[in-house]
């Protein structure tokens, strides 16, 4: 009758209690894990301070103490309030359109971080990548309409590096230029000053998280012209010059390497054109 001894009873009780606790904790732990997973979704308009680790690592490192917030001289940063702001509760972020990052030389927010959630390896603020500016709305951007607003370009702390004005022909007027603000992601810190200063009621240029703002070239892609420059000669010997497709409707507008021939083109024969090398078979009517 070993079952009746106190030690067996105690053992049985211990095992039952432990199993109950373990099961309860498994349920509670799963819920907690779900909530932490949910908290990882950083809204697109919320930007992390300079030097912030990638979001997954950031949530392992940020203790939500707010020291970066306190040391920001421009009150750019805030801690996300529970249920009001999108980012994980208590973590620091800023919204470019409200208060952008002024890119202090001494990066006080990074200096203040006690845990390394803001990486101390960031010593030059120009290396910060808080996001990437994207001119999201060419239809409303004043410069793209042919006006000379230029504000985003002028206010950019990395003027002529992160944003340039690329001159192109204004097709609408036919004889003006468009000074297209063009972001160069390699130099853009994502400070958000361009978005803040955009004169439109809703900014036409916005700072997006890098994952949204940028594509990525495939590992194996090589740019022929770069390879050619590097080699100083064509990369492939004896390459066959294939016909080029020309702009315009239709599928038979392929031009031979011979190129432009005067008097070929349009109906009246006055303009030049390209002689198609390959013709589609005549379509029976």
């Amino acid at each position, binding site marked *: 009758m070993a079952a009746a001894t106190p030690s067996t009873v105690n053992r049985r009780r211990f095992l039952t209690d432990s199993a109950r606790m373990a099961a309860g904790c498994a349920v509670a732990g799963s819920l907690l894990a779900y909530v*932490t997973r949910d908290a990882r979704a950083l809204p697109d308009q919320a930007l992390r301070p300079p030097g912030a680790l990638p979001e997954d690592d950031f949530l392992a490192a940020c203790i939500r*103490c707010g020291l970066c917030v306190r040391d920001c001289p421009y009150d750019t940063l805030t801690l996300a309030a529970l249920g009001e702001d999108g980012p994980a509760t208590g973590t620091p972020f800023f919204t470019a359109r409200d208060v952008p990052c002024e890119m202090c030389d001494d990066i006080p927010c990074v200096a203040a971080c*006690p845990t390394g*959630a803001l990486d101390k390896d960031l010593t030059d603020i120009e290396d910060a990548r808080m996001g990437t500016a994207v001119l999201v709305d060419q239809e409303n951007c004043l410069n793209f309409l042919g006006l000379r607003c230029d504000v985003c370009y002028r206010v950019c702390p990395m003027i002529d590096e992160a944003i340039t004005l690329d001159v192109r022909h204004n097709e609408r007027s036919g004889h003006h230029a468009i000074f297209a603000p063009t972001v160069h992601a390699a130099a853009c810190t994502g400070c958000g000053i361009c978005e803040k200063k955009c004169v439109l009621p809703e900014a036409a240029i916005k700072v997006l998280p890098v994952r949204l703002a940028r594509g990525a070239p495939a590992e194996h892609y090589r740019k022929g012209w770069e390879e050619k420059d590097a080699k100083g000669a064509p990369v492939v010997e004896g390459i066959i010059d294939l016909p080029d497709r020309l702009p315009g409707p239709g599928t038979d507008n392929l031009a031979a390497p011979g190129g432009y021939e005067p008097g070929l083109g349009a109906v009246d024969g006055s303009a030049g054109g390209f002689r198609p090398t390959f013709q589609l078979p005549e379509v029976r009517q």
Partner: protein
Amino acid sequence: MSTTGKVHLPTGQEALEKKGWFGAHKYLVLRRLSQAFFLLLFLLGPWFGIWWVQGNLAGSMTFGFLPLNDPLILAQMMAAGHWPETTALIGGLIVLVAYALIGGRVYCSWVCPINPVTDAAHWLHVKLGLQKGWQPKRSARLWILATVLIVSALTGTIAWEVINPVTMVHRGLVFGMGFVWALVAAIFVFDLIVARRGWCGHVCPVGAFYGLVGAKSLLRVSAVRRDACDDCMDCYEVCPENQVISPALRGKGASTPLILSPDCTNCGRCIDVCAMDVFAFTHRFDDHVETPPDAATDGRPREKTAA
């Protein structure tokens, strides 16, 4: 039963009569002052522009050179796979050493901003004479503590900070509340209706952690004059962790009068409420027991003879 006349007195009534209001509430008042003090330290900056202390309970910087960090958060961080920088390590170490000396759960009763909430819930609970409700084992919080560390490791996040009401309330007061008040209300209701002393006594892994930190702490409450105990049970009534009292108070002979359980929060409420001044703060190596000379002549029935 009528010989003592104390059985039917409300809790603390006798101490009140004997020691006066302040004498019977000394540590309670000091504790509230301490809680307010630590909160005010952090609020001096945002409210009055006096930036002696920056940050919050999760991590702070005092006078620009003294870092203090919550070691439980650092433990979760390490479990999540991030090794903190030296500043946080030093800050965490200072906090660990301090609480290891003065009693880990001193954090709970003298600093934590949730304590006034759960104390208020308990006060109302007693006023309304509610049932004690759901009482999971005291060890539940240790299981939850382990769960929190495991979830941190599995998800690669500081998991408990997603819902930790302690740091959330503190951060809310210092940086902006958001919907933290709803969390406070939830804990209040939980302690009031679902489980008496539920949050701090059974659930909170922060308290469990600090209990472990202070398991061998120097500062302890001792039932120094336990021979004078008249079994009024007031200390059991006010103690938030009253399982810690018996081994010390009911111990006989050479058994230690010290309350050595890591669950004791060193709140000192038992000292306040005892008309016989049985309890006192002392250190863990002071295990002497005083026998009051008037104990036998005082006319009160003693523990051993009362039955």
